[in-house]
Structure formats: structure tokens, C-alpha cells
């Protein structure tokens, strides 16, 4: 009897474990509709928007009692993949037009994406500028250790574009996986210079110095935002998009160093 009971217990446990593992997304959905008045808005946003959007989310919650805004920050292309693979999201804010296009092409966007901010590259150098970098042309110096984003990620594509516009050949010691990794290498002094977004350099003020350069005008990154076709909270999603595009949204973005479109 005891043996049979333990078999049943293990079977039940295993099934429960499997169900818990597989049913994650379903649980999320039922959790949303099941609450009485409590709603959750899920926003997928590019990592560079972390500080600004967290703040905007808090403000949005303030004007919508009972609403919880949940963020998933990450690399835009990874987020785009998650959305096209069916992750339950209401709003997508990407750091590049191409990543938004993959989502739109898959038929997952409701309406037209709107560009809400722009970001340009600056040269980030460690505090005190040990490599004596003043302009983009200095990066081509043979002795300088330069890190760039890999061409596959948006900041790398922008860097390539800016360098091509300036007709410069820069040999980086590393092609990093994202802009924060470039910033880390510069911050620790491993690299003498790197190309990062103005907002990243601004967020690391005191540890790195940002140097503006005119060629950055040739490689400006656009940030599009859209509510999603399969949004569990489609009305709120549209409202959040409008909020980001509104005056308070613009103010928060420009404070972080973004340019208005």
C-alpha cells in the first residue's frame, strides 16, 4: 500500500513539475484576466531604454490605479524573436527600425510603428582620456585599443556606418555583443576608446567621458514603438504608446540624452 502511494505521489509530482514547466505562458494569461480590476501591461523594450521607461512606467501606473506595468528589457533582436515566437507582450519599443520590421513583417504589430526617439553615437573614453582622443580620426591610430559593437547588433551597424562616412578604417581589438559591454571595457580602462550611444555615455558620467563627433549625424539610430496585434491589453497598450509620445514622455527621453524624432 505504502509503495503504491509513493508511486502515485511521484507520478503526481512529475506531472505537476511538467505542467508548471510547460504552462508558463498560459499561467501568465489566466493571471491577467483572472484579477478583479488588477491588470498587467507587458512592455518589451530595448535595453538602452531601461532607466527612462522604468520611470515612465511608474508615472503611467500612477494615473491608472490597479494597473501594473511589467517590463522586459533586452537586446532588440532577442526581444523581436521572443515576440514572433509568441511571447505575450502588449507593447514593443525597439532600438532599430530593422528589429521592428521583423516583428511587423511577421504580422505582430497593430497599426504603424512610430519613431519616438533618436540616439547618436559618441566616442567614449576612460576618465582623463589616457589615449588622447579628440576626434573620430584618432581611433584609426595604431597604438590605440578600440572596442566597437559587433556589426550584427544595432550599435555596431551604426558604428560601421559612421566610420564609412568618415572614410576611416579602424581595427578594433574586440567586437562586443552590446553597447553596455563596450562601455564596461572603456570604464575599466581596458580600451582607450569605444563608440557608444550618447545616452549610455551620459548614464556613465563620472566614469567615462563622451566626445561628440560630426560624423555621428550619418548614423543616427531611430527608436520605433508599436502596440502589438496579439496584445492581451490592446486598449492600454495604445494608451501607453500615446503616453511615451506625449510631452512628459518626450521630456524624460530628452533628459536621458535622446533626441526627439
Amino acid at each position, binding site marked *: 500500500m505504502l509503495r503504491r502511494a509513493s508511486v502515485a505521489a511521484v507520478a503526481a509530482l512529475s506531472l505537476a513539475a511538467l505542467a508548471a514547466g510547460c504552462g508558463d505562458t498560459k499561467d501568465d494569461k489566466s493571471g491577467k484576466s483572472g484579477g478583479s480590476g488588477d491588470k498587467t501591461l507587458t512592455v518589451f523594450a530595448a535595453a538602452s531604454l531601461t532607466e527612462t521607461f522604468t520611470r515612465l512606467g511608474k508615472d503611467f501606473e500612477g494615473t491608472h490605479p490597479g494597473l501594473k506595468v511589467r517590463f522586459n528589457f533586452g537586446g532588440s533582436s*532577442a526581444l523581436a524573436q521572443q515576440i514572433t515566437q509568441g511571447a505575450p507582450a502588449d507593447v514593443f519599443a525597439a532600438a532599430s527600425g530593422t528589429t521592428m520590421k521583423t516583428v511587423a513583417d511577421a504580422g505582430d504589430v497593430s497599426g504603424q510603428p512610430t519613431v519616438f526617439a533618436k540616439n547618436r553615437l559618441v566616442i567614449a573614453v576612460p576618465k582623463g582620456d589616457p589615449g588622447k582622443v579628440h576626434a573620430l580620426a584618432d581611433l584609426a591610430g595604431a597604438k590605440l585599443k578600440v572596442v566597437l559593437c559587433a556589426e550584427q547588433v544595432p550599435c555596431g551597424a551604426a558604428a560601421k556606418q559612421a566610420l564609412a562616412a568618415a572614410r576611416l578604417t579602424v581595427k578594433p581589438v574586440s567586437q562586443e555583443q552590446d553597447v553596455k559591454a563596450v562601455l*564596461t571595457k572603456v570604464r*575599466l580602462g*581596458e580600451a582607450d576608446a569605444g563608440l557608444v550611444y550618447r545616452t549610455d555615455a551620459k548614464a556613465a558620467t563620472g566614469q567615462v567621458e563622451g566626445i561628440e563627433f560630426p560624423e555621428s549625424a550619418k548614423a543616427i539610430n531611430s527608436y520605433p514603438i508599436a502596440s502589438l496585434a496579439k496584445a492581451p491589453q490592446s486598449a492600454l497598450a495604445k494608451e501607453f504608446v500615446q503616453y511615451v509620445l506625449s510631452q512628459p514622455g518626450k521630456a524624460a527621453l530628452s533628459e536621458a540624452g535622446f533626441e526627439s524624432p
Partner: protein
Amino acid sequence: MTVLRGRRARRGEAADRVRGRPPLVLMLPALVGLVFLVLPLAGLLVRAPWGTVGTRLGQPQVLEALRLSLVSATIATGLCLLFGVPLAWLLARVPFPGVRLVRALVTVPLVLPPVVGGVALLLVLGRRGLVGEWLDRAFGITLPFTTSGVVLAETFVAMPFLVISVEGALRAADTRFEEAAATLGAGRWTVFRRVTLPMAAPGVLAGAVLCWSRALGEFGATITFAGNFPGRTQTMPLAVYLALETDPQAAIVLSLVLLAVSVAVLVALRDRWTGAA
């Protein structure tokens, strides 16, 4: 030897008696575990773009990354053996105050997120690091952004696997053989070389295999400490990650290559060793 063989035979008989129908209470979770581990692999195989595998593999960058991965993981395993086996012996055989603390410290890289490990390595061995600054000034050696940096990052992350495995084997081994050798006049080094190490050989092998596999798949510490540059520091996991950004199909192909090569090497090794035993 006869003693050992007799013991092994007796253990075999005991195992026969324990055999019979495997109890469901063990089989069910075992099967769930197996399915859980194997299913993602099946997912990769099902989604792989088989039609274009050939052309994708022909790209020089892929072969370069694969070669770099195999070479650096193998050197890292060599370093782990060179330093890890003596360290495991120290922990298992030499009682000293604070041995528990040291044992816990050895396993730190296991619990540390690899990216944090990479940052820690930068803080110590980087150009402005505690040791790195001196290395740079005295010898002109800088480790970040070099293949040596890749090897170091992999060694850091993989060594605990070897140490734990070897230490376990040493603790499980019967110390009476070592004592017998010592009473017959063998010095400590001779005892280690002729008695301890051969007895712990299966544990050392298992540890080395774990260590190599971990080093081969290493991503976080490598990209943080050594960066990513094709041919110099871009190993397969790094190539897979970046391929995922633009071309998920290519990422699947790269993962399968890494998987196939590592499984082939592990199977070949296992056959060689069990054949010899």
C-alpha cells in the same frame, strides 16, 4: 590486484541480487529527467535548416571559431589538470586550518555568474588590474583581447569541476594502500605518483571531461574578459550568440556543429578509456 578483483566480483553478485524489475518510483522521475534534457536538443534538430548546412559550414569564420574553441578548451583543460589535481590532493589529504573555507572558495567560480567572473578577471588581470598593471609594465604582457585571455577565462570557470571531481575520487579511495606504500619506504611524491594518482584515475578522467565540456561551452567570462574578435578570441559560443542577433538559422547550425564535435570527442574518449580498462 587480486584483492580488488575479488571485491569487484562480489559487488557484481550483489548488484545481480538488487536487480529485477526497476521500481516505478525511480523510473518515472528518471524518464521525466531524460525527456527534459533531451527535448531541447530535439528542438534544435527539428528546426535546423538542413538544406543549407553545407554552405554555412564552408564559411572560413565558422571553422576558425571551431578550431579556436577546441584548441583553447584543450589547453584550458591541461592547465586545470596541472594545477587542479595538486589542489584537489591538498584538500583531500593535507589537514590544515581553514581547509573548509578554502574548499568553499574553490567552488566560487561555480556559483559566480560567468560574466561576473569575467569582470573579476579584468579587475585582477586587466591592463589596469591588480596584477595586470604590473604584468604590462614589467613584461609588456596584456591578457584581455588575446587568445591567452580566452584560455584563462575558460580555466577559471572550468577548474572547480575538475577539483571537485578529483577530490571526491581521492576521498573515496582507500588510504590503506598509500599507508602500505609509505611503510615500505616510498616518499610522499612517489606514493602520489604510483598509488594515489592511478587509484583516482577514473575521477581525474571524469573531471577532465567535465572540465573540457564546460570550457568548450564557456561564453560569459570569455566575452567579458577576452572580448570577441574573429580568429583571435571568437569561440563557437560567441559566434552562436552573435549569429542569433541577425540569423537564428545560422545560430542553430553553429550550435549543432559544436554539439556534434563535442559529443564525438567525448564518445571517442570514453571508448578509448573503457577499452583500455
